[in-house]
């Protein structure tokens, strides 16, 4: 059945069927997009197009979808449209349509008989059974179109001419929220258009195995591109809302005084990135302390996690002889990877804070983020070392090179690209980490100075001989800055409101993280290409 291709000598009738199905797909897509626009309130639900209210228009589109889908299905059954349907639409379709009909029956039962479970439940069950039978028993072209067409038609009629409109509300007893028609109707249309499009996509490919493939692919594609759409929306929101804040006062009018020569050069002016957040004399508050704090955090975490992770990876792949050791470390690594970030914070609070700084500090923050980075570094560098071909090791050993020399000059250099990529991607993840910082790191919500770690080293004859007050005191980091902006209430300066400053911080944070990701992904592609050459 499945590999039967429709003959290329398609007749006029099959072209009509395809045409109708394509039209239905197009209409469903339009309704889908329009409903989301309504839900996002980019289109007002009381708007009027071509003399019809927009919700009624959507209802009308649903009716058209139903008629179109049913038309193709029945046409195919009666032989007017040339298709290759299977004997039945299959259990999946039966279950989906059965559930759909059950919901329909439940709603009708409630409307007619009242809101008692005993009243609507039997109706729902009977309708569900009917829907199941109606979609499974007839040939596929009827079974996968007519049951859904009936539901679409009824729904469309209820929206278009019935009482289901913007002013209608649904306030179920179990919920504290009230569902207004203005939001519920677009949601129903989204579902309806997806169902209609599913059947239409099947019909367009002529039912049968190819038809089912077309329908399934259509649904999967819609989901995936919906996901990417959400991603685009997230990024879009942050960019649109944050860009004004970030660019406040920015321009080319700045001056850079070169200290020794005494010359002033024209320089970029970027107050949001280069100013302190608090402080009396700051005109445009910026996020410099948070940026510097994030840099120090990332630097410390990498310094801590990379030697540990790479060392462990080398031991596991090159030295460990017993399976059991590898297994234990693997379980520990996966455990660390899936440990919730806030638990790392609790651990830092219980173990490190009292022993190192007695309070929130940069150093403890670095260590805790290092713990979180460790499994990522370990997993990726271990994969990279395992990917080094055994031939390299054998060739090196054949030359009389010792095992350690081989590891040092053959294995580790060959595994470097993978490790570096892993570290960059891992850094991208911990740079945005907030939860542990709340417990072990964060300081004042609007800091008025940047942490000067390098200048704060002091040496003494007393143990521990080296001290660094700045490293042992709290600071700010970009994600922490965003959190404290959200929770702190009123912003101290008039230039920005709290929300504006938050959007600006979010944009800077996003740029940092996305930048790291881009570098990581690009280096992965680069190294992979070089490997395959």
């Amino acid at each position, binding site marked *: 059945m*499945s590999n039967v291709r429709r003959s290329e000598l398609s007749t006029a009738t099959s072209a009509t069927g395809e045409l109708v199905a394509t039209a239905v797909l197009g209409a469903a897509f339009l309704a889908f997009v329009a409903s989301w626009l309504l839900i996002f309130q980019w289109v007002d639900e009381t708007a009027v197009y071509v003399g019809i209210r927009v919700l009624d228009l959507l209802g009308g589109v649903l009716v058209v979808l139903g008629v179109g889908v049913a038309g193709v299905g029945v046409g195919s059954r009666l032989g007017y449209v040339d298709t290759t349907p299977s004997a039945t639409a299959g259990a999946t379709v039966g279950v989906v349509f059965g559930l759909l009909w059950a919901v329909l029956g439940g709603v009708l039962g409630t409307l007619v008989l009242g809101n008692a479970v005993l009243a609507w439940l039997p109706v729902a069950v009977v309708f569900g059974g009917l829907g199941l039978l109606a979609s499974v028993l007839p040939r596929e072209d009827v079974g996968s179109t007519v049951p859904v067409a009936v539901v679409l038609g009824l729904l469309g009629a209820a929206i278009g001419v019935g009482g289901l409109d913007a002013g209608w509300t649904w306030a179920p007893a179990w*919920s*504290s*929220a009230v*569902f*207004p028609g203005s939001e519920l109707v677009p949601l129903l249309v989204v579902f309806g258009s997806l169902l209609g499009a599913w059947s239409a996509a099947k019909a367009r490919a002529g039912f049968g*195995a*190819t038809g089912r*493939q077309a329908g399934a692919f259509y649904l*999967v594609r819609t*989901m*995936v591109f919906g*996901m990417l759409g*959400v991603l685009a929306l997230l990024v879009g929101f*942050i960019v649109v809302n944050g860009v004004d804040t970030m660019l406040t006062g920015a321009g080319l009018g700045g001056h850079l005084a070169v200290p020794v020569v005494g010359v002033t050069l024209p320089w970029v002016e970027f107050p949001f990135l280069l100013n302190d957040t608090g402080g009396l004399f700051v005109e445009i508050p910026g996020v410099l302390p948070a940026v510097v704090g994030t840099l120090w955090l990332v630097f410390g975490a990498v310094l801590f996690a990379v030697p*540990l992770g790479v*060392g*462990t990876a080398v*031991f*596991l792949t090159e030295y460990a002889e017993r399976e059991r050791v590898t297994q234990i*470390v693997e*379980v*520990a690594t*996966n*455990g660390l990877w*899936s*440990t*919730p*970030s*806030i*638990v*790392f914070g*609790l*651990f830092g609070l*219980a*173990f490190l804070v009292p*022993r190192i700084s007695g309070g929130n500090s940069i150093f403890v923050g670095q260590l805790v983020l290092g*713990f979180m980075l460790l499994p990522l570094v*370990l997993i990726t560098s271990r994969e990279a070392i395992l990917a080094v071909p055994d031939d390299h090791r054998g060739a090196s050993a054949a030359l009389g090179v010792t*095992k*350690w*020399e081989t590891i040092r000059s053959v294995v580790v250099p060959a595994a470097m690209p993978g490790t570096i990529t892993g570290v960059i991607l891992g850094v*991208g993840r911990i740079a*945005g*980490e907030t*939860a542990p910082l709340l*417990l072990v790191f964060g300081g004042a919500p609007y800091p008025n100075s940047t942490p000067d770690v390098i200048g704060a080293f002091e040496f003494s004859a007393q*143990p*521990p*001989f080296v001290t660094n007050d700045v490293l042992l005191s709290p600071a700010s980091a970009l*994600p922490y800055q*965003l959190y404290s902006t*959200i*929770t702190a209430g009123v912003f101290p300066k008039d230039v920005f409101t709290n929300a504006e400053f*938050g959007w600006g911080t*979010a944009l800077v*944070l996003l740029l940092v*993280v996305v930048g*790291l*990701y881009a570098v990581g992904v690009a280096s992965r592609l680069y190294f992979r290409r070089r490997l395959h050459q």
Partner: protein
Amino acid sequence: MIRQLRRRVEGLPGRLRGRVADSGERLTQGASDYRSRTADGAIAMHALVTVCVVATFALFLDGSQWTVVPVLGFLATLTVGWLRHQAEAAKALTFLTTVATVSILTLIVAFLLFRSEPIVRHMGLDLLTRTEAPLWTSNEGGVYSLAPMMVGTALTTVIATAIAAPLGVAGAVYVSEIASDRVREVVKPGIELMAGIPSITYGFIGLTIINQYFYAEFRTPTIGMYFSAGVVIGLMALPTVVTVAEDALSTVPESIKSGSLAMGSTQWQTTKSVTLPAGLSGVSAGVLLGVGRAMGETMAATVMLSHTKGFPSPVFDVFSNYGETLTTVIAFEGGNASGIHMSALFAGGVVLFGMVMVLSVASQYVEWRMHRKLGGDQQ
């Protein structure tokens, strides 16, 4: 069946004894191997390094200011050892890093349990089961019940899973089976990027846009409820599901798929009836990991929930004014809690950690089984 079991039990002491003897033998064998293979100087270095590391850890645990002395000793020993016996020093160092990695997880478990012991002694089993007011107060000698937070975590996790599981599996199928190479090179990094967007950013958008939307349109009693938080958490768990499930689907051997296609199946029939069932354990491992991520997600929920502790009625009313999960209570109150209150937060951490670990181990087991099955190791 029963007789078999009994024979097993009877055989146990003997086998156990044999095993102990075996491992003892292995140990002596290993020790003499080590002696004969390693130079005297290297043995001395190993011993010194061990002493220094143990001393460092002990002093650090004690909070002593003298911790720096064994650290310096460690560095000095290692420098000398590196110059004289580089190979041994390197091996010792990599072994040390391995021990450190494993001990971090051990320390986490130990300290969580240690710090939550006072509240367990104070509240007993009520800590997990108490459902009548007061649920969470420092009055009356301190009453802390984790039950409402566990309900909250369950509600947000269920909503998040309902979003992340189907969409994630669909995404994995798309990336590994449907998409052309060029589309895949765009979609896959896009999904990875979604995982990289910081959770606090999701939370900020959720707070300023999604929560406001629900408050204005659906007239929820407060700005912030389980439903919107669960939706956002689901979006955040989505990339984990996609990545792991996609890995699983691409490990299904090409020969199986080709076999199915050669029989005349369509690509979708192959995916549905061959690839997905073969990779099912890997896909479910991905879903389990995603559930774990959703459970442990902190910042978005902290920013979006109302931090009112209680049980919605009925319990699945996700639009109610209540909103607190295990993670949010720790993040929200951890900064200024002390004494038994802090201990209660640690107990919350233990519950959370335990649940996430169970999910993690389960997913590893499932994945391991799949590799065994597809690797053809069946006897």
